[in-house]
């Protein structure tokens, strides 16, 4: 409380539920795109990034149930064991909801430093379940996905707050 770390949180219009659903669908769509597979870099998980965003910014309206169901959808899309993404996203939602007051006090750079470990933890849970189920552990490149996802956090913040900002600018609030 000694210094105003973040620029004061602007009062923006409440987000509509349809926008949350649309953003999650788009994130799912991006995840389903045919990403090139490489041993050194893995594609970031856009669904987990979006889930974390809504957990931090709208912890009252978005929570465990949605995260868990999205995890099930990801499991079907990936053809993996039922429940591993559901587990990872539930833990992610918990971390996001538990930290949401704290994270929002920080500047964007420090927020990224919060987000990267959370996304890496999500990847780690999926990895743990896979290895427990008998898969061979992948290379260190597996974790670049979480790293890249964390670096995409500012862009996600900008995009996902856009409709609210536009509404405010046009003077509806």
């Amino acid at each position: 409380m000694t210094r105003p770390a973040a620029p004061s949180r602007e009062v923006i219009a409440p987000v509509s539920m349809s926008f949350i659903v649309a953003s999650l669908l788009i994130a799912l769509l991006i995840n389903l795109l045919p990403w090139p597979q490489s041993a050194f870099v893995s594609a970031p998980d856009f669904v987990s990034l979006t889930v974390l965003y809504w957990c931090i910014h709208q912890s009252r309206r978005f929570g465990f149930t949605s995260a868990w169901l999205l995890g099930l959808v990801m499991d079907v899309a990936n053809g993996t064991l039922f429940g591993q993404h559901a587990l990872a996203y539930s833990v992610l939602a918990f971390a996001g909801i538990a930290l949401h007051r704290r994270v929002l006090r920080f500047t964007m750079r420090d927020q990224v430093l919060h987000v990267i470990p959370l996304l890496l933890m999500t990847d780690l849970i999926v990895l743990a379940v896979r290895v427990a189920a008998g898969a061979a552990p992948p290379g260190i490149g597996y974790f670049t996905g979480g790293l890249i996802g964390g670096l995409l956090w500012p862009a996600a913040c900008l995009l996902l707050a856009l409709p609210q900002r536009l509404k405010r600018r046009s003077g509806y609030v």
Partner: protein
Amino acid sequence: MEHAPPPFFKHGPSPLARLLLCSLLSVALLISDAHYRYLGGARQVIAFALYPLQRLADTPGELAAHLGEFLATRGMLRAENAQLTDRHLHDAAALQKYRALELENAQLRGLLEMRAHLPGGATAAEIAYAERDPFIRRVVIDKGALRGIRAGQPVIDQAGLIGQVTRVYPWLAEVTLVTDKQHMVSVQNLRNGLRAVLAGHGADGQLELRFIPLNADFQIGDQLATSGIDGVYPPGLPVAAIAGVERNPADLFARILCKPLAGVANHAQVLVLDWANTTPPLPEQPPPPAKKAGKGKP
């Protein structure tokens, strides 16, 4: 979570309780899916809802492919045409020989009153997308249960075996590639008829012959084809060629790496063979446990 919410606000269960509930549910799902496979129905329902999204995600790639086709130059087309004509001639010769052999084979089989081994029909399909999971080697093809695809059917391309259908949705089917770590094929060395078990390596374009004694006769360049004794694959489908043999006297088995012959990692057209397991049932008394691939033993 450092301070509890005031009692006069209604919050429902605390986040920790919700987390515990969700985790327990997830773990229960994991266990039931891994061990009992009760959840096929739920998976089908979600896959049904997901299908339009998957097709949509597939569109940019298809559009790019169509654009590439549209922009193909005359020179490229001519070169391809010449290559195809050449190939056609080459194949025609091989086909003649094949027909003769097929006829002869049918006669011989008739003489021996043996069952015809070769599969009947086949369904052409296209690879819709590859799953974005670094742990598994699977692709999804664009024909499903509505087109008569069943789990267990072998999938080939023009060069050889690609894998096996492992899960079927109404319009899609999942194919586990031969390179998947969990995938085994019973193969035969075409040079000397030695049988072996070929397993995926989990990496693209690599297979491994397991449990081969050090002195077994496997050499670089040997072609491996399905032996058909597993009852899963029809005999005689080319699978892989041996790319490296390492015999370390300190180990129990030789380390033999192979390269798949089919374009396992490519996006391409594939053929789903209509092959039902016609292997006769095992005899009543199971034979005493023997070592796998014991053929190469002295």
